[in-house]
C-alpha cells in the first residue's frame, strides 16, 4: 500500500520533536479526523535554520510531515512557501489516493508556521507577495 520511501520516512522520521525557542509554529488538522500536524521552525534572516514536527496520524501523515520538513530545511521562507502537496507526495514516491490529504496537511502546516512568523514580524500578510495561500487556514 505504501512506497518504500513512505515506509522509510514513517519508520525513521526526520526532524521529529520540538524547538523550545521556535519563532514559527503552525498546527493544522484536527483530532476528530485523525490527523494533527504541528511544525516548529527557527527562522533567521528569513531562512529556515531549523525545523521539527510532531504529528498525530496514520503512517502517511507521519511520512509527509517528515518529508515536508526535509524539503524546506535551510530554505528561505519565500522558497518554502512554494512547497506544494504534490511535491511532498512525489518526493515520497507517491501516496495512495486516500492518503493524498496527508500531503495537503503537510503543505498547510509549513505555510501556517510561516504565516504565523510573518505576522509576528509585523508583515502585512495581504501585501506579502509570496503569501497568496499561506494564511488560508486562519
Amino acid at each position: 500500500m505504501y512506497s518504500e520511501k513512505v515506509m522509510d520516512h514513517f519508520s525513521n522520521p526526520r526532524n521529529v520533536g520540538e524547538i523550545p525557542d521556535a519563532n514559527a509554529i503552525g498546527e493544522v488538522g484536527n483530532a476528530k479526523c485523525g490527523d494533527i500536524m504541528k511544525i516548529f521552525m527557527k527562522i533567521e534572516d528569513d531562512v529556515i535554520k531549523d525545523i521539527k514536527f510532531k504529528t498525530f496520524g496514520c503512517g502517511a501523515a507521519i511520512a509527509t510531515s517528515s518529508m515536508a520538513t526535509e524539503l524546506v530545511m535551510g530554505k528561505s521562507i519565500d522558497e518554502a512557501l512554494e512547497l506544494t502537496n504534490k511535491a511532498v507526495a512525489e518526493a515520497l514516491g507517491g501516496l495512495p489516493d486516500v492518503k493524498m490529504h496527508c500531503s495537503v496537511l503537510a503543505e498547510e502546516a509549513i505555510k501556517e508556521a510561516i504565516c504565523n512568523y510573518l505576522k509576528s514580524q509585523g508583515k502585512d500578510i495581504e501585501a506579502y507577495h509570496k503569501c497568496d495561500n499561506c494564511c488560508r487556514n486562519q
Partner: protein
Amino acid sequence: MAGLIYLDNAATTGVDVGVLEKMIPWFAENYGNPSSIYSLGRDAKKEIENARAKVADALNSRPNEIFFTGSGTESDNWAIKGAAFASVRKGRHLVTTNIEHHAVLDTFEYLSKNGFEVTYVPVEPNGIVDARKLAASVRDDTSLVSVMMANNEIGTIQPIKQIAGLLAGKNILFHTDAVQAIGAVPVDVQDLGVDLLSLSAHKFHGPKGTGALYIKRGTRIDNLLHGGGQERTRRASTENTPGIIGLGYAIEKAVAGMESNSAGIRKIRDAVVKKVLSGIPYSIYNGDPEKRLPGNANFAFRFIEGEGLLLLLDMNGIMASSGSACTSGSLDPSHVLLALGLPHEIAHGSLRLSFGTDSRMEDVDYIVETIKRIVLRLREMSPLYEDFVKGKKLEE
C-alpha cells in the same frame, strides 16, 4: 524477535491440515457435479449431505435446515433481504443494532433505500444491546430483527436467547450473524431460539468462500440467487464441493475442541490484557470485559492513531488489526467504537488482537513489550500527547 505472531484470527484463520486433506480429493479427482446422475456426481452429493449433517449436529438443528452459501456475507444478505421481501405483507419495518458487521448494516442500508424502514438500536457503553430496549423498538409492522451473536471488533456477546424470548409470539423473524461465535462459544439454534443464523467456514479453520445459513423449518424467506435447483431450490449455484466438505469437517472439529481451545485462548488473552492495562498508561479496554469472545481483546491507546501502530507491529512480526479508518481509507473511525461512546480521537487509536489455537503463552511478554514500545514512541511524536502532558485540556 519471536518469529511471526498472528493475532488476527477474527479476520481469518488458516485451514486445518486435517480438513485440507479431506478437501483435496474433491478438486481434481472426484470433480463430478453433485447434480449429475452418474457415480462421480452421486459421490459428491453424498459427501455434501455428510457435511450438512455435521453442520446440523454442530448447531443442534436438522440437516434440512442447513443451506450452504458462498460466504458469511452471502448468508447475511440472503437472510435479511430474503426475510424482508418475503414478509412485506406483515410490514416493512426492520430492527437491528448499531454495531453489526457491514455485511448486515449495508444490507439494511440497501433495504432502507428500497421501501423499508430500519431502526438501529444503540448498544450500551459496554458494547451489549439491552434486550428490553431492543424488544421495545418492535412494532406491529416489524417483520425482521437481526442481532449479531458476537461482535467482530470488540467480541461482545449479545443476549440472543433473551431477545428471542421477548420476540416470541410476535410473528417476527429473528436472524443472528454467528460468524465470530462458532467454535468460540456454544451455538445451539434450539436453545437460542433463532429463525436464521449465518456462519462462515474460514473463521474456524475451514476454507474461505464457504458459508452456511440455518433456516428454521417453516421459515419463509425469498431466494437471493436464482437459477438452478441446488440446495433444494433455495440457493442456485453449482455446489462448492471441496469447500462444503471442508466446512463440515472444520465445524465438527471446532465444536468438539471448543471447550479446551477456548480455555487456553482465554488464558493467553487475559494475560495480555492485564499486562497491557497495567503497563501502558492511558490505555482503554473496549467492550464488556467478561461477556466477550475468549480470543478477543480491543484496546484504545490515547493520543495515537491506530494505523501507525499496526505498521510498526508488522515490522516487529506481529500481525493485528484496528478499527482505524486509515486502513479502510475513510476518515471515520470504527462505527463500533463510536457506538460505545468513545470520542473520535480516541476511537482512532484502537488495536484489535484476536487470539487463536496457534497463540502461545510464551509470546505474551514479547507482544506486550512490543506494543508498549511502539505506543510510547508514537506518543513521543504526537502533539496530542504533548498538549496533554503540558496540561492543556483536550477538546472532546
